[in-house]
């Protein structure tokens, strides 16, 4: 076997427990997804029917192509829904376990907050807060490491995009203070 001195080992103490109870079954999510897709098809079909899905003297109207696509999507959704309702085998298969959902939310909620903050504080301050906060509270990394990494990352991003490549990002009060 391999010699132990050149091994790379990374641990994941917060890893989701494989025995964690299921939050929702795969079958329920399947059914929900098909219902949403079906509703969307009906909505889009209606909208395109209103726009005009027939033939004008110069060719198909604006709604023609999308209307038939909505019909196709609707039909495929109904078919999928039928299969999902019919199939009882493996019905208790898990879509996501409680532990898994917790981990997904650990990324999703901060990302949502980050997007919100970007509107008020600008991209770079929000990015500093996201990186530092995530490293500290989700990753349990030492505070100084988190703050330092976040600061270096945000400044590097600012220099790369706004200064070097002229790609302008949303700015907040802090950037205004420095005259950007």
């Amino acid at each position, binding site marked *: 076997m*391999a010699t132990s001195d050149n*091994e*790379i080992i*990374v641990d*994941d103490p917060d*890893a*989701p427990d494989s025995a964690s109870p299921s939050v929702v079954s*795969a079958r329920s*999510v*399947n059914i929900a*997804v098909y219902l949403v897709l079906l509703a969307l098809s009906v909505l889009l079909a209606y*909208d*395109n029917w209103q*726009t*005009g899905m027939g*033939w004008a003297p*110069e*060719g*198909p*109207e*604006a709604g023609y*192509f*999308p209307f038939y*696509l909505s019909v*196709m*999507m609707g039909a495929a*959704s109904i*078919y*999928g829904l039928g*299969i999902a309702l019919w199939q009882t085998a493996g019905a208790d298969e898990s879509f*996501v376990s409680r532990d*898994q959902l917790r*981990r*997904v939310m*650990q*990324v*999703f909620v*901060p*990302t*949502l907050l*980050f*997007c919100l903050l970007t*509107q008020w504080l600008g*991209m770079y301050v929000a*990015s500093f807060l996201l*990186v530092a906060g*995530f*490293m500290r509270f*989700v*990753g*349990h*990394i030492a505070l100084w490491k988190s703050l330092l*990494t976040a600061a270096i*990352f945000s400044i590097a*991003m600012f220099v790369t*995009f706004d200064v070097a*490549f002229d*790609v302008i*990002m*949303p700015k907040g009060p802090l950037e205004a203070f420095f005259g950007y």
Partner: protein
Amino acid sequence: MEAFGLLFHGFTVLLTGKTLVLMVVGLVLGIFVGVLPGLGGPNGVAILLPLTFTMDPTSAIVMLSCIYWGALFGGAITSILFNIPGEAWSVATTFDGYPMAQQGRAAEALTAAFTSSFIGSLTAVLLITFLAPGIASFALRFGPPEFFAVYLLTFCSFVGLGREDKHKTIISMALGLLLAGVGMDTVSGTLRMTFGLNELLRGINFLVAVIGLFGISEILLTMEERLALRGHAASISLRVVLKVWRELPRYTMTLVRSSVIGCWLGITPGGAIAASFMGYNLAKRFSKDKESFGKGRIEGVFAPETAAHASGTAALLPMLALGIPGSGTAAILLGGLMVWGLNPGPLLFVEHKDFVWGLIASMYLGNVVGLVIVLTTVPIFAAILRVPFAAIAPMIVVSCAIGAFAIQNAMFDIWLMLLFGVVGYVFKKVGIPLAPFTLALVLGSRTEDAFRLSMIGAEGDLRVFWSNWLVGSITTLAIVLLFWPAIGAVLTRARTLLWPARGGSAA
């Protein structure tokens, strides 16, 4: 040979200091992206696309395609050292690559992987060099009906040849085409599917959707899994490289077979994943010593890697010649072309010679430089995996947001990206494939335009799609492919012979 002259011209375009620097930067970023968990070829290219917005198209495509080559190389590192396939097409590489690493032959396995990647790509690039100009000049004769037929062929082959459930592929494709139609209708100027939202007037940007679907959703999926890993550090010495290269001629047949499979599956939307498995299984089937596969046989690394890379590279052929991407990443590169103001399609070879031949030349040079970089820097990249995911995840999120915002300078796009992230997460878990969606979104408006222009030309007569032998045969082929599963049922027996692993359940 005209191609040689043009290729030579391509190299002169390329050999400026700035382009070479961009190439190396692209390759390093790409390997980085390929090694990191939760990032891969399409995500990496999508996230890094905004960096290229202010560049000239040639520099931009050179850098982006190098990110792609880099990601292809990078996927092999984690497969062999950690038994974690960075990409789905690296799964087959782990079968023999990881056992080799366990036996202390990691350096050999890595050299084999990188070398065969290089050989696979090179074969596909040669194919592109000599075939693409011909196909493009042939396609110059195409009118709207022919183009619509080709688009139809692409979509039908996805439904007919894809391994996913047919209705799921259809949903994914129809949704993509529908979302591509949101906003101002390009033919009549009518607004549609905007529901009174001003932000939707511009339509739904392809790249924003891709960043959400591949970037954000991938982070969510990665977090769900156990992130612990255990593997081997390895460095490659020149002695090992030469040893592997000396053995290479013995595996000529494997390499040739895998290259051919890869090129074929790359051009048709079969993809690199299918190619790598097929390459592996065929190598095993034709081997005299079947038992030794899966226990650390070097041939088991050569075969899937060559096929995956030949396929990944060949996917660019239809993109360059016809404007039809052969893979998800090619679709994103195509999205990039449009951002830089180029019109994808056969005219590219006529109107933007510098661009096309610069790109093709960069495929040669990028693969050579990439091979040298990965062979020399493996230890550094393997060490990246020590960086905790808690530090990497938020940085990827920020990069995605920057990318989404930069495309149209719209905050709305950041929210749209988040929405697509959730959609991508659910779709992946439910089993709705994302590749047809991506393809439909990028080809949507051109497909519709081609259809409507044909209809206007033919005054609404659908027989226009069978009006001459060319368009007629493409349309017929499309319909045959759509119903391929029914036709293919007859050929199932042949298939079980090709995939002994799958047919094994019956045996």
